[in-house]
């Protein structure tokens, strides 16, 4: 059991008065954060809060085995400080982000460059310096931002020796639409819709995190039945996306039976979400204080029946895939991320579980309905494309089982309460295990209860580095299957 000394403890989906968040001089704060990470903590979020001309840094750390979160903050700082990244890689993108957003320089950061803003040369984030490998046999491959299919924009820069990738650097920011900049002073009229579109395929994940933040700031929680509805929608979201990913992986190794079947079955799962709320992505379901749509007995019965059909279909399609030696050999020992690397860079979600790490918010930091109904954590060792595909398949089975059990036993009661105004000068944290991994929302209110700062961390923010590492020593022709095996969000990263 860890006992953080410098940080305040809190549970997922709870809040703390800002004055009770321990504050330290910046050097002590960085040292204390490093000590917590050394003790087994994981950096969920790290961000700046402007205060006059200075900035306070805030760290949210998860102790997964202890089911607790820890928060701390620095005293206001200007100029720079000694970078945490120098000793703890988990912080590398967070510190670049703080530098970009607030101009605070993490001194000694090994690779300090913008995260998503355009640079002075114009509107292309990728116009800038990239890490380069030199040598007569070395060549560089640049891909994007516009890609060859219907895919979000991003730029990939490979350093290759022949087929082998020595290094991949990923430059994002093309989807940057000012999500966080719009939030201070909120919630505004558009805030709920923006939260539903942080990453469109994770609508339920982000909307639930946002609603949970507002509920804890109001000193309450959503009615039980609304929590149940959110848990059901979250698993439907997972099923649709995991099924789509299995299909996409099959497509990239030219195994068309599973590819074409999963493309359709993914749509069947999306249509189940639409059965609940009208929208295939779950827009309009989750609202602060509860949910906007209920499931009557007849709709539960329809949902259960159609779910069983879709689950049977996906099982058949997945079995074709796993039974095929030619598919398995394409996935094994390709794009490997070792467990030690995964821990070091702070991978989350299926990508982390495919490295053997037991890490799942639903299990480690249960909030909402997951306090009453749990899913086993799906783990597979190996860290390769095969393991990431395998974890998805395990999760499809477990989500299916969870839904069958939950749909059979709905709790009674209403689905939405009026929310009281948010508490002033309070910090609230909500984590949700979206289908890609940990969705983290942190809100800090001002003296009037409006947002002073709102920090969103999509799982992709942690995991893009994982994809870059997976490519090292891998043939560049295997990039598509490596990329599909992570299937990360550009818009969730770019905000």
């Amino acid at each position: 059991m860890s006992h953080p000394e410098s940080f305040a403890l809190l549970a997922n989906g709870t809040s703390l008065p800002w004055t009770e968040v321990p504050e330290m001089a910046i050097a002590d704060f960085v040292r204390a954060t490093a000590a917590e990470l050394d003790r087994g903590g994981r950096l969920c979020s790290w961000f700046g809060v402007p205060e006059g001309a200075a900035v306070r840094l805030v760290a949210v750390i998860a102790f997964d085995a202890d089911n607790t979160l820890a928060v701390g903050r620095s005293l206001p700082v200007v100029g720079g400080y000694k970078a945490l990244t120098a000793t703890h890689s988990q912080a590398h993108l967070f510190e670049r982000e703080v530098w970009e957003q607030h101009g605070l320089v993490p001194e000694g950061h090994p690779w300090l460059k913008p995260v998503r803003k355009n640079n002075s040369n114009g509107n292309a984030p990728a116009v800038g310096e990239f890490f380069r490998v030199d040598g007569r046999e070395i060549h560089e491959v640049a891909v994007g931002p516009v890609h060859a299919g219907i895919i979000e924009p991003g730029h990939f820069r490979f350093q290759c020796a022949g087929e082998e990738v020595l290094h991949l650097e990923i430059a994002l920011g093309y989807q940057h639409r000012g999500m966080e900049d719009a939030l201070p002073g909120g919630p505004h009229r558009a805030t709920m819709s923006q939260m539903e579109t942080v990453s469109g395929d994770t609508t339920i994940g982000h909307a639930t995190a946002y609603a949970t933040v507002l509920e804890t700031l109001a000193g309450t929680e959503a009615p039980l039945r609304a929590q149940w509805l959110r848990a059901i929608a979250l698993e439907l979201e997972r099923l649709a996306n995991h099924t789509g990913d299995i299909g996409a992986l099959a497509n990239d190794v030219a195994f068309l039976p599973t590819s074409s079947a999963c493309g359709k079955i993914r749509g069947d799962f999306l249509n189940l979400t639409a059965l609940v709320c009208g929208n295939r992505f779950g827009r309009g379901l989750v609202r602060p204080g509860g949910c906007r749509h209920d499931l009557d007995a007849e709709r539960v019965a329809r949902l259960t029946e159609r779910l069983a059909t879709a689950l049977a279909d996906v099982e058949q399609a997945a079995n074709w895939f796993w039974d095929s030696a030619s598919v398995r050999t394409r996935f094994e020992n390709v794009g490997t991320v070792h467990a030690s690397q995964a821990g070091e860079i702070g991978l989350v979600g299926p990508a982390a579980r495919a490295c053997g790490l037991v890490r799942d918010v639903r299990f480690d930091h249960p909030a909402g309905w997951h306090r009453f109904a749990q899913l086993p954590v799906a783990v597979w060792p190996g860290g390769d494309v095969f393991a990431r595909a395998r974890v998805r398949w395990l999760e499809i089975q477990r989500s299916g089982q969870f839904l069958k059990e939950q749909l059979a036993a709905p709790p009674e009661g209403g689905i939405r309460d009026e929310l009281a105004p948010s508490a002033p000068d309070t910090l609230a944290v909500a984590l949700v295990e979206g289908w890609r991994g940990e969705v983290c929302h942190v809100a800090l209110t001002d003296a009037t209860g409006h947002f002073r700062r709102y920090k969103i961390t999509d799982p992709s923010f942690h995991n893009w580095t994982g994809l870059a590492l997976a490519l090292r020593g891998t043939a560049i022709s295997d990039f598509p299957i490596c990329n599909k095996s992570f299937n990360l969000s550009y818009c969730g990263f770019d905000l």
Partner: protein
Amino acid sequence: MFVLDSISHRLKRGCETMAYPKGPAPALPDRHGGALRVDAAKCANGCQDCVPVCPTEAITRSAGRPVALDLGRCIFCAACVDACPSEAITQTGDHRMAVRSRTDLILGDSTKEQVRLAVALDEKLRKLFGRSLRLRQVSAGGCNACEADTNVLGTIGWDLSRFGIQFVASPRHADGLLITGPVTKNMELALKKTWDAVPEPKIVIAVGACAIAGGPYVGHAQVNNGAEAVVPVDLYIPGCPPHPLTILDGLLRLLGRLEEKAIPPKA
């Protein structure tokens, strides 16, 4: 698994492509609501109940004027439908809402209760594209949901290629662009370059509230409030995201491959 197993699995599943458009269109989910209809004549004098509840400020009502709802900005949350005391704004359940002109999405005035559905391309372009349309998709700052439901059209259920419509990997191979997202400042240059690389004659299709008018991000300094700020748009397909059926309807309508039917009475 042997090759014969794969073939027999496939045969057992049979043809899974829907009959539409030869057969009836698949039903929208019952809670979807479809396109909105605005009967401004029903609005009470001075009533503004729907105006402040709209998250994207798609509804305006200036003094002495009927209410105006911009279906291009609309994200179909139905908050206005719930707020309206006189049932002036209603859901039609109709999946069809693609238009050729931006102003055709502004509902409210009499004779403009519903969208004026898109007419087909002119004869010359129809001859060129009617049976073979190659599109380059540019994702420019949205949430990836419009992209996802455009991608769905390529799956076996919808089988977009049976209409001769395909998404291609190079703008040089394309007859036009299908754009999603509000066009962030960071994507502006990439979109312009892609547009320039498409040979003439070329068309642009804006899919979703973001690409039409900025969607939930309208007014943000980091975005352009839609594709129109950068390239001329020939077809607007509203939604957040549009249902695949709405996108398909728009594409087929543009190519003149749907028989015109009267707009069904409101639900």
